[in-house]
């Protein structure tokens, strides 16, 4: 899945004097306050971090509250879906005019009917709605299906993705993977015949 990246960063974290007894806890607290928020410096939404203290020497700031700055080496897991990239998520709700998907358990993605390609038709079966492909009857998008979609825009404040199912390689992940697997052996046969 695109949109996830692992970054390494050297940070200077300022700790309040009241936390001097347990500095590592203070560091974790500071970093935790950044979780699930878009950060411009990191260029992405911070999902997880791993921090190690680089040096035990810390500079104390002069001022009203003597914060001290600790150098920390961190590895950061960032989520940054750029437009035109592909993400995957589980379908949470299907209606004739939209598909709601939840990506990575925290980000809401919506595909409106204008962004669903003509191939898919909305059907109601047994009281449940689904989008079924006209050309491949097995390709169905139902509640709980893992869906691959293309990102159109990403609203950083609420972690909202506006998605699209227009490109050919979007749709049910399982079906797409199966389709690509089936394509492989025929390629190999083709090459063998060519060599022979």
């Amino acid at each position, binding site marked *: 899945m695109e949109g996830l990246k692992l970054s390494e960063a050297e940070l200077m974290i300022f700790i309040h004097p009241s936390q001097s007894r347990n500095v590592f806890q203070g560091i974790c607290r500071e970093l935790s306050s950044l979780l699930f928020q878009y950060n411009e410096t990191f260029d992405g939404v911070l999902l997880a971090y791993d921090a190690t203290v680089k040096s035990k020497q810390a500079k104390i700031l002069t001022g009203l509250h003597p914060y001290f700055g600790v150098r920390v080496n961190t590895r950061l897991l960032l989520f940054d879906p750029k437009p035109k990239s592909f993400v995957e998520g589980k379908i*949470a709700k299907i209606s004739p005019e939209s598909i709601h998907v939840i990506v990575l*358990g925290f980000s809401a993605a919506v595909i409106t009917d204008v962004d669903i390609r003509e191939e898919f038709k909305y059907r109601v079966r047994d009281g449940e709605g689904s989008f079924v492909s006209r050309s491949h009857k097995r390709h169905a998008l139902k509640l709980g299906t893992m869906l691959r979609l293309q990102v159109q825009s990403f609203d950083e404040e609420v972690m909202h993705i506006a998605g699209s199912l227009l490109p050919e390689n979007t749709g049910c992940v399982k079906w797409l993977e199966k389709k690509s697997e089936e394509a492989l052996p025929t390629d190999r046969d083709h090459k063998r015949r060519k060599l022979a």
Partner: protein
Amino acid sequence: MGAEEVETADLSDKALVSAIREVLASAQSGDTDQYNELVQLMYIKKKKSGDDAMAQPEVPDDVDVVAQRETLLKILSHSVACLDDVHHNHLLQLILGTRIWDHKPNVIYALLDLIISLATTSGKHLSSCLDTLVSNLRSQPRKLDNKMLEVLSRVHAALHKISYLVPLAPSILLPILAQSMPSVHDKARLQVVVPYVKNLLKLENSSIIGKVVGKDILMMVMGRFRDLDSEIECDDNLQNDSSLAMFDMELDVAVEGTLVSKLLDDLMVESFNHLKSCQDAGRLDEVFENLFESFENLILNTQKLKFSQFLMFYACSLDPENCGVKFASKLLEKFLSSNNNQVTRTNAVTYLASYLARANFLSASFVASMLKRLVDECADYCRTCNDDARPEVHQVFYSGCQAILYVLCFRMRSILEVPHFQSQLTPLESVLSHKLDPLRVCLSSVVSEFLIQAKACGLFIVSDAFIFDDLSESELSRALGGFFPFPWLLEKSNSLISPHFIKRSEVKKTYEQAEVTVYGDTDNEEDSDDDVDPDNEMNKMSITPKHSVMHETERLLKMPSRISPSTSPRESL
């Protein structure tokens, strides 16, 4: 066959949908005639604004208009992607500013569906949609009939659905909830606090929202309790103050005072019911942890609270073996840990003392074990303390001693029945007769009561000098109120709390029955104070303001005999 019927219904719906979408699109390109017609549908005939809309004669909307409104809302909820902030601003404002209680149920349900669609489809409307829902929760009418109750549950369901589809919604919801909480200073609108808190507790219980922000919701509710509690001043302040001007103000604010206490009473009942339902659902344990955190942060170090702490008390009474024990243990930890500051430690042990003394659901053996740890801690302190003679240096120690004496005032008989416990109390004698002399510094009322009981039970041999008969019975019982004061002065919640409370009258009976020889005991091993001037002794026993902790405790231990309005200056109208 059935499929065909569904197909045709779909088609006609589709026609309507595309028609509306065209209207919206034309508004974007400048042709706003039809769009304005749509907007007019959303207006309802303005009624006089008032909290109790039921009292006003209903102005019935045209049935056609209502039906059209409902249809429009339904269609819009299928076309939210076509709604544009700029060109359809008017329509959006009307939708988001709607007070749902003014509309018919069908319209309300259509509106809620639209709000759910709006919130989940486009990120920029999420916050305003949540705002609309919360302000409608806040503005709910006082009396709800069955239909309105259904509407209320649908509003909760809407919040739930939005949180399901947008996982970050609860974190965005939380500040909105906090801002909408009625403020204690806005007395005109304070009445809505009870239904609002009821809604908050319902959200706390919900699976998605409660899981994420349940702890913060409890913190908010506890904060409101604390604010209301602080508004209620106790009677003694009035008596101490002799300025006549106060009585003039008293008439004006008399109503206020009872309003606040009534609200607090209702809130108490709601919260107790909520705790009970949490227990029935099997989640009292996790709620207790969150509740204790709120207690630590908001209640523990706040002075003059009379009712808020009882939330903890009630939660413990529901589950004595688990929560009941945990509460006492956590308080004890706070007292024992030298990392905590002095105020926290003394308050923690005073709360612990009140709790152990008053909770009738705690077994005598458990109370005994807690007491033993306190006694051991004080005995350790005696052994290792420095030679400083000033009482203010040893405040934590004195508060610990006072706590032990306090618990024994209420539980002496039942504790002594616990096997082997009396022998575990022997360090107490050395503590009481230590050169730090806790019996002189601790509150005279508590010491006196303790000594009377100790004598009656034959615990120690006691010097006469410490027994004060001049304290009247009522004063004595007031002074022994403690941090969980009794009698409970709120009517409705009384029946929920008093069954778990040990009353002083029960305790008095136990020692009145025993033989008490107050006078004539001259052989004492503890203190040789007979040669000391009795007047001087009295002075030494009273607490000087310098020893701020004991003074605070003394003020707190005075029981409010009736609730009276707050007389602090900011209350003047």
